[in-house]
Structures are given as C-alpha cells and as structure tokens.
C-alpha cells in the first residue's frame, strides 16, 4: 500500500527519512515561524488603526446609514464647505459662494484642479448631479436638505467651475449649513448606477483617503489620496477595524492593537485612561445629548403646564454629576446645544420642584400616569432616566419606564403611540437649525407642537433673506421652546476619546464629529499634526507563536525519528 511504503523499514528507503523530518520541520516553520517574525515587525509605513463601531457597507452615501456614519463617509467624500457645526465653515470644494441680490440664488465657484480618486476631474456637473439626485432620487439622510429645507428649485452649471443654486424661498444659510453638509458625488460614476440604494461598488470621492480594500464585517483599508487638495493625509494607510463591542475596542486600545477608538470613552472609564501611560484622552464636543421628548398629540403631555412642570422637576445638574461625573454641560442651560454657533442666549431650564408641584396642581394632573420609552442598549441614558423617574415621582407624578430597542421606539414614535421617550440626539438634530425647522414641520409627533408663536417664527425664518435675521428669529424660537418645552435635555456630554500619541499625536476634537474625522487626518499648512510610523500591530506578541513553532517542529522530528527507529528495529 502506498501509505505503508512511506514508513517502510526497507533499508534502501531509510536515506530520505531524515530529510523528510527536516522538511516537515521546515514546513511548520514556513507556516508559523516567518509569519511570526513578520508579525513582530512594525509595518514600515505610516499606518493608523482605528476601531469603529459597525460596518458602514461600502461607505457610500446611500448605504452607509444615518448621520453616525458622517465622519467615515467624510474621509472619502468632500462637501463644498467644511463641517456645518462651526461658526464659519472653511472652503473645501468651493472657492466662494455668494448670495445674489435676488436672495434666493447663490453663485458657487468651485476649486480648480481637483480630481476624483479614479483620476477623473471634478466639475460643476458633479455638483448639479449630486443635488438633483438628493432632491429627486431615492431618499437618504440628506434628501430633505435639498427637497424641503431648503428646497433647491434649480441647480445649474454655468460653466465647469460655477454652479447656480436657486431655492424656492430665500436661503441665507445655504453655504454655512447646507453646502457644508451634503457630500458631493462623482457624476460619471453615479449616473450609471440604476439603483443608488443597492450600489455596492467602491466608493469614489475626492476626499483625503480612498478605499483600498473592504473586508465585509471586519475592516476597511484606506490609502492616502496623495493628490488631496486640502492638505497632506497624515497616514499612508488607515485601517478602520469594525469592533462592535465597546469594551473589546477599549481593550484593543489599551494593548496597542488600535491607535484610536472612534467611540467616546464611557464616563466611568475616563479616569483609568487618564492614568494610562500610553493612552491619551482627547476632549471633543460631539453636540449630542440625552433628552426626554413628549408626545404633544395626546394626554397627558398635550398639556403645556405639565410639560413645563416636568422640565422644572428634573434636577439636570444632579444628573450631570451623577451620570456623567460632571463631564459635560447641564441640561439646565437650555435647548438646543448651548455651544452650537446657531444657539442664541438660551434662557435656562431651571430646577424648581416647588413650582413644578404648583403647575401640576393647577392643571389638576396630580398622580398623572405615563410611560417613558428608553433605548435598552444605552446604559447612560437608562441610568439617567431612572433618576429622572425618581425626580418626577417626588413631585407627585407616576411615570413608568419601558426599555425597548431603538427601531421599536422609532416605530411607536412615528405612529404617535407613546407618552414620552428618551433618546440621544446627534449634532444633526442639535446644531443644524435647518434640521430643527424640518423636524417641527414634519407630519410626525413634533408637528403636533401647538405653539403658534414658534410656528410663525420658524415659518418666518424660512423667508428671511439674511443670516443675521435668520439667527435672530432662531434665538427667539429657542427662548420660546425653553419656556414651553416639547423636550427636556438632561445633559450635553463632553466626550473623551482614547488615542495612542506614540502612533499619532495630531487628533483634533471637532464639534459634532468627535476625533476620528478627516480634519484630524490631514496636515494642512502650519498644522502640528504628525504621524509616527505605526507602533501598533493588530496582533499579539510573536513570542508564543515562535515558541509553538519551535516546539512543534522538534516534536515532529522526534516523533518521526522514533517511529522509523522502532520500525527499523522491528
């Protein structure tokens, strides 16, 4: 039998047994040893490894998901202006944007010499195509900022470098907000896509990084776009590793297997990271919150005095101290986010349980029962809600908590089948005034807010020709909303992000975006950002692998020699 022949005891075959043992040992070393050695080496190129919380499909604007994908989509795609959450957005793909005397029309000049990742030139046609696709194509997260607030009636390319945008109403914040929010797509790619929602080809943008490889469910490998027009990418390669469980992501950061985590550090872990020698903590204002939203379309929260009573009953300062250990801004500073450039001088939302009791008694709503829906996957929000329930019980109300997953809460809120719910609003909701107008105009629960003065102010804000007038109307709206709240903010967290400075020390906290975003990852003129050769590896120590390889090889050689010796003797 051929199998037996290998271990034959016949003398003429014994000459190649030793080489066979050596070959087996070599094979094991080839499989394990050299790999381990390579594993121990630094990459030799500037590679940054970043933990991200989920798979954002192909990072394209139709499949990446909601606004939580913005920082990662922004690595690939550019907007005409930079982030919408700052006082004065920087020019990005645009060279200038001017509102004409007709007030509804803007002339946008585009940057020359910009190319897409595939080498095609960026032109005005791309801008026209993108805005028309958002407005008329399959809806996505940007649709209502082209179709409703504002309503882009026409987008016309005047030449290769000039676009004329005409809104249905005056749109003074078009450049500062809308054009800073909508990513621009390549016309030559997307015009061939029949169904954008099911496009799973490679994402082609003008951004500082291009997609090199996508391993579904596991990671994205991005390479620097060496022709990037707005600064030099600080890393040759970015590896965005998908680690859904936050605890696992922070363990990987501690052990140096990633250089940064895009999710904020939970408040209770901040001190341990502060004390860590190799990990730095970078602060950022994410423009997020935890807030209680009322259903104003039905009892009991169709009662404005009750809503105000709830606002007064909640001790927002205590919530901040207890739940966030003081790291953030108290909800008592009003709504929306107090540090947003679009927020006026907010009247506060004070804590006054005595006044709350008086309002409840006046409205004859003592002992009012209602249910608060809470997202079960968010421990911070859940803990805050437990404390809020205690505050509300102290003023004579009878709230109860129902924990559900987010899609279930959304289903009930869209149908209006709820009393109140808690959620964490993002920058898009808290620092983008066009989204505020959009929300109050919606045919959903927020549309049931019966405050005529607010409605008139928001309607007027859509007609004013200048940003100054818009800001003034907005400020008056915020004041009215704080007095007659459709929602009560608990707190605005000041997030801390974990990074390893030895790998890269140029992380910048950007309002609304955290620290992992393109503005951290490009070095503009005068930027202090530096990228060291990556010292992290996505593996552990090579020592055990080398040891295992050695032991296995020795054992294999010993076993084969022993077996041959036994058979030879036999």
């Amino acid at each position, binding site marked *: 039998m051929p199998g037996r022949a290998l271990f034959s005891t016949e003398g003429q075959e014994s000459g190649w047994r030793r080489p066979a043992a050596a070959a087996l040992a070599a094979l094991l070393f080839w499989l394990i040893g050299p790999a381990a050695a390579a594993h121990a080496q630094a990459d030799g190129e500037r590679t940054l490894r970043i933990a991200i919380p989920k798979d954002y499909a192909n990072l394209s604007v139709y499949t990446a998901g909601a606004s939580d994908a913005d920082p990662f989509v922004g690595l690939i795609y550019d907007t005409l202006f930079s982030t919408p959450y700052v006082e004065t957005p920087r020019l990005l793909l645009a060279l200038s944007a001017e509102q004409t005397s007709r007030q509804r029309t803007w002339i946008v000049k585009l940057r020359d010499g910009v190319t897409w990742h595939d080498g095609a030139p960026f032109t005005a046609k791309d801008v026209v195509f993108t805005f028309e696709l958002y407005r008329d194509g399959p809806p996505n997260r940007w649709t209502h900022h082209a179709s409703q607030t504002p309503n882009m009636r026409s987008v016309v390319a005047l030449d290769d470098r000039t676009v004329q945008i005409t809104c249905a109403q005056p749109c003074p914040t078009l450049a500062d907000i809308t054009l800073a929010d909508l990513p621009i797509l390549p016309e030559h790619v997307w015009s061939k896509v029949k169904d954008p929602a099911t496009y799973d080809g490679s994402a082609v943008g003008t951004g500082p990084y291009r997609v090199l490889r996508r391993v579904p469910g596991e990671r994205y490998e991005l390479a620097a776009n060496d022709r990037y027009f707005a600064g030099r990418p600080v890393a040759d390669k970015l590896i965005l590793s998908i680690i859904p469980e936050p605890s696992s992501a922070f363990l990987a950061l501690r052990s140096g297997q990633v250089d940064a985590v895009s999710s904020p550090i939970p408040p209770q872990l901040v001190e341990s990271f502060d004390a860590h020698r190799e990990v730095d903590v970078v602060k950022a204002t994410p423009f997020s919150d935890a807030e209680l939203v009322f259903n104003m379309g039905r009892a009991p929260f169709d009662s404005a005095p009750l809503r105000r009573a709830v606002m007064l009953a909640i001790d927002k300062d205590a919530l901040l101290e207890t739940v966030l250990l003081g790291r953030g801004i108290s909800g008592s500073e009003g709504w929306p986010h107090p540090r947003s450039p679009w927020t006026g001088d907010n009247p506060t939302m004070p804590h006054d349980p005595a006044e709350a009791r008086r309002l409840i008694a006046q409205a004859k709503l003592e002992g009012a029962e209602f249910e608060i829906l809470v997202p079960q996957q968010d421990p911070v929000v859940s803990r805050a809600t437990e404390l809020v329930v205690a505050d509300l019980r102290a003023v004579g109300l009878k709230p109860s908590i129902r924990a559900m997953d987010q*899609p279930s809460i959304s289903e009930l809120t869209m149908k209006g089948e709820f009393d109140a719910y808690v959620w964490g609003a993002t920058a898009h909701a808290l620092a983008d005034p066009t989204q505020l107008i959009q929300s109050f105009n919606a045919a959903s629960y927020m549309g049931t807010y019966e405050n005529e003065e607010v409605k008139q102010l928001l309607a007027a804000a859509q007609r004013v020709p200048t940003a100054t007038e818009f800001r003034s109307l907005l400020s008056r709206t915020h004041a009215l909303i704080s007095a007659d709240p459709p929602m009560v903010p608990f707190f605005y967290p000041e997030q801390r992000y974990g990074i390893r400075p030895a790998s890269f020390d140029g992380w910048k906290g950007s309002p609304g975006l955290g620290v992992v975003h393109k503005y951290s990852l490009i070095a503009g003129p005068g930027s202090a950002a530096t990228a060291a050769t990556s010292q992290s590896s996505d593996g*552990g120590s090579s020592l055990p692998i080398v040891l295992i390889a050695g032991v296995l090889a020795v054992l294999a050689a010993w076993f084969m020699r022993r077996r041959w010796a036994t058979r030879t003797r036999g």
Partner: protein
Amino acid sequence: MRRQSRRHPVGRRFAQYGLLLGLLVVGSFALPRLAPGDPLTYLVGGNEAAAFSSEERERALAQYGLDAPLHEQFLDYVGGVVSGDLGTSVRYGATVSDVLLDRLPWTLLLVGLAGVLAAALALGAALAGARRRGAGAGDTDLLAGILLLSSTPPFFLGMLILAIVSAELGLLPAYGATASGGETPFVGVLERLAMPLVTLTVTMTGVVYLIARSALLSELTQGYVRFARAKGVSEQRILRRHVLRNALLPIVTIFMVSLGDVLGGAVVVETVFAYPGLGTAIYEGVLARDYPLLQGALLLVAVVVVAANAIADGLYTLIDPRVRRADGVPR
C-alpha cells in the same frame, strides 16, 4: 399511499424535511416583520425618518420592494428562494447571498471546530468520569469544574479571556478574523480564531458532557458489562469498545440538537471578538430591521440545523442496528 410510504422510509423522511423547510420559509419571512420598526430608521436615523413625508417614506421603502402588500412580498421571497435570489440587504446594500456567503465560512469554521473540540473534550471527560465514578478528582471535581465553566455566560467568559490573553498578556489579537498585513494568512486566521474558539468550545462542552456521562454510567450497569468484566476484559476496552458505542445514540442526538443553541451563542461570541461571522450580520440586521437579510439568514441557519438533524438521522442507522431494522434499511 400508506403502504407505499412504509416501503420508502427515506422518501417519507425527505417529505417531512420538505414540509419543515416550507414552514421555515414562512417563518423566516414572518418573524422579522413581526418585530416593531422598519428599515427606514436605520437608513436615515430615527429623528430624520420621522421628518420624512409619507411620499418619501414610500419611495425609500420601494427601493427594496418593501412598499408592496405583504402577500406580494411573500411571493417575491418564495420566488427568490427558488431561484436563489434572496434580494438586497438594506444594511449592506449588497445582495443577501453575497453577504451570507461572505460571513458563513467564518461561522462554519468557528462553530464546526468548536463542535468537534467540544465533542472530543466532553467524551474524553465523560469517559474519565465514568471510569472513576464518584471519585473526587476524577469525577465529581471534573463535573463541578465543567458545569462551572459551561454555565458561565459566553459574553463574560469571552471578555475575561480577551482581557487576560489579549490585553494583559498581549498573546493574541483582540479582534477580526484575518490579518491586515505582515502575517501569512494562515497564522492570522489561527491567531484570531483561538479565543472565540475556546469560548464557544467551553460553553458547548457542558451539555454534551452531562449527557455523555449519564449515558455511559447507564450503560455501565448493563449485564453485558458484567459479563465482559467476568471474562477479564480490561476496563478501558469495555468502555471504548462496548459501552461508548452503545451510549453514542443520545450523545449524537444532543450534539446535533444543541447546534441551534451554539449558533445562537456564536452571535455573542462573534460580537465580543469582532469576528465577522453570520452572528454579527444577524445582530446588525436585527438592529437595522433589514428584512431581506434577516429572512435569508434565518432560513440559512434553519437549513443548517435541519441538515444537522438529517445527518444525525443518518448516523443513527450507522450507530445502532436497531434503528436500521426499524427503518427497514437492509443491513
């Protein structure tokens, strides 16, 4: 008809499996839709979805054929199952078949290896325990140890292993399934498989061990064992050649039945170790209410479990001659 079906037990069994698969197709379609919510929340976010006009909602759902009446969606789904087109995933924008094919190999590797290791460990421990029944270190201590480990929640066990082996000792990578550079693919896969494999194996071992131990102890009281001992057959030979063979039937049954639970456990283990298997895809599909992905994944998992049971049915006839006779299969 009844007489004919008696003559063809294999055909009857296939008919049963066919009926079961039909029910699974209905179940996999209905289950995701019974949960509250729809994919819009994922696509644009809860607050933005609430700001959509009804016309925009319809247009968004129409992209995935989810605006059609339920019966039309069901017929589309059945037609797709027959033709191999499971639709497009809302969560990933790719065809469901592609998403499942990307993920399935990793889950099969993890669950398959964990199953083999758990079975080997459980049988080895059960044999050792049966040989030293009642002895402290050989049996009761072993029983207590395995029960303790197996009853540890997989999330906790996984995090513990991760914290010690990866974060503290730096021996193995904490996440993923493949290396992103520097290593040969083979080593990269092995390194990343090790910790999830150990976690899943430990959680699987307990159930199989308990059944195996009980079946072995029960067989040890049989007359043929006494007879063999009287003949002077060694205890090891009695256990391996006689007792183990007779005890295999319940062990195979519980092993195959518990595969469904193991796939459930794999969801947790894959999440802890960021392992890109079917479990994490299902988890993300649930959060996104990705009906096409969920119905495809549920159907696939159900088919795997049914196939495992079919294999168990086939193994019975090999293991136990009495089953062969009952089924009318010639010896």
